[in-house]
């Protein structure tokens, strides 16, 4: 319904450069979103620099004698049970968390949209099968699916990506389906069909742009929640394996030392929280900026 209205009042053209510019103009006014973007940029730069300046074998997974050092100027976040600098590991580890969450969201997005669009476009049996499939993934608590999948495929980056994409795709399938359903029978789609445009072109040219803003917002928020999911899985021992400095795995390691060396848990958790916060701020900002009607 919302999409329908938008279509009518704004026309398709607004999803072009002008929409991007307009969104950016509004987004710039949103302090939270700007802070989110700034943090994310900083994090990207930080993790890129860390990859250059730190030696993985020596600084990230190498052991030293300085075990359990409390935070100090020398070790900003302290050191862990193997004497590794937690600051280095947190910054370096950002790329794992970011890669997994972006990667899984992207896979989920593509698969989900494709399935959703197909379900919405063809309707009937196809729709039924695809939607029941997403129902299954909705009805089982997500963590359980992920734990099953990862423990079956073995703990590795790719199985983690796959497991998390499974938890992600249903959201996008629903968005895709809903937006395809609303525009499926509208005149311009009929017209496209009448002049013999292939189906995929219709979907790509006319239908996808209509759910673009919903997708962008959902993607941003999903990347955030996938960071949490990935770290949850690592925490449960089925995610990234040590000694990889993934944040959740670091938390899981630190848990045994929480009483004597609380900082081992504090900083990786803070890193997760702030990154997700930044993504949420950006997501909220984008939603307000792309759909001003929703604001206030």
């Amino acid at each position, binding site marked *: 319904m919302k999409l329908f209205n938008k279509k009518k009042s704004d026309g398709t053209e607004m999803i072009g450069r002008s929409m991007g510019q307009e969104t950016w103009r509004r987004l710039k006014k949103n302090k939270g979103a700007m802070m989110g973007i700034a943090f994310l940029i900083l994090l990207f730069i930080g993790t890129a620099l860390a990859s250059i300046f730190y030696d993985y074998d020596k600084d990230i997974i190498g052991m030293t004698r300085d075990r359990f050092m409390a935070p100090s100027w020398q070790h900003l976040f302290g050191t862990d049970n193997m004497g590794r600098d937690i600051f280095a590991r947190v910054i370096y580890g950002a790329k794992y968390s970011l890669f997994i969450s972006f990667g899984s969201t992207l896979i989920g997005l593509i698969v989900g949209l494709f399935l959703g669009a197909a379900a919405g476009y063809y309707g009937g049996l196809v729709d039924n099968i695809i939607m029941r499939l997403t129902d299954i993934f909705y*009805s089982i608590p997500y*963590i*359980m699916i992920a734990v099953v999948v990862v*423990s*079956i495929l073995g703990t590795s980056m790719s199985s983690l990506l796959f497991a998390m994409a499974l938890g992600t795709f249903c959201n996008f399938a629903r968005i895709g389906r809903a937006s395809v359903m609303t525009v499926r029978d509208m005149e311009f789609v009929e017209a496209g069909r009448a002049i013999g445009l292939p189906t995929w072109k219709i979907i790509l040219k006319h239908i996808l742009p209509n759910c673009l803003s919903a997708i962008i917002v959902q993607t941003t928020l999903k990347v955030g929640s996938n960071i949490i999911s990935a*770290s949850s899985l690592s925490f449960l021992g089925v995610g990234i394996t040590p000694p990889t400095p993934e944040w959740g795995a670091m*938390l899981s390691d630190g848990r045994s030392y*929480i009483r004597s060396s609380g900082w081992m848990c504090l900083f990786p958790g803070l890193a997760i929280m702030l990154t997700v916060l930044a993504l949420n701020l950006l997501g909220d900002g984008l939603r307000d900026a792309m759909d001003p009607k929703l604001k*206030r």
Partner: protein
Amino acid sequence: MFRYILKRIIILIPTLLATSLLIFWAMDLAGGDPVDQILPENATFEQKAALREEMGLNDPFFIRYFRYIGGILKGDMGESYITHRDVFQTFMGRLHMTLLLGGSALIFACIISIPLGIYTALHQNTWKDTAAMIVALFGVSMPNFWLGLMLILLFSLKLGWLPSGGTGGFKYLILPAVTVGLGLAALLTRTTRSAMLDVLRQDYMTTAKAKGASRNRVIYNHGLRNAIIPIITAIGMQFSYVMTGSALAETVFGWPGIGRLVVDSINKRDTPMVTGSIILCCVLMAVINLAVDIIYAFCDPRIKAQYSGKG
């Protein structure tokens, strides 16, 4: 209404069948021979072969699957490889712990979030609203198992006020419930606020004011009664989150609920336990969703009419 419930239950059946097939298949793919789980580590090859035959593990996949489904229809979900106890009974024996944790978390979340959401909506764009929303955003962004660890660090280790885990009286419930509830509260605060803001814009609110209804009456009698509908929807949608959150909080706090049961069983490759628990979780979620829908119908006459109309 009754027919509607019946219809929902009928729809549930193929979903459950598909779920059970998927899980059964997935657990079948998994490495690890069940026999290795059941027998002591130093069992002989002969013993293993005998057990494999005895359990029918040599049969083709679909035979085993249909045998399993047949068992379920007869009320037998099999027994755990590890504890040798009935899966259904084990699940039920732990269900109340998860319901207690999830229920308390939900109550805690509602107590905080609904008043806060209304308050912030009424004071939109003031510093109080902004501050509360920032806090809520922090809440949404926090991994709840980490929150649990931090709460343990503060309340059990530093202050020594509350136990750090296990079960027992009310004080054992506080930290896990807060851990699960806080993230939920943050989410529901955001939902309540936007639902309330949405309702406040509605014409019928002006109608009510124009009638001469007091501010409180307008907000609570007219506003909340409408805003509660999306809030209930959100709560319904968050049950999956509650279960996920519980699974993590149960691990952090050693709380013997079904979340931990499933995670532990997976780690131990306790196939019947995993398969059974996940199917039962599905049923549980379906029952909860149905309950939410029914509550929903009581709050919204339009939906109630739909159910009784179409049946």
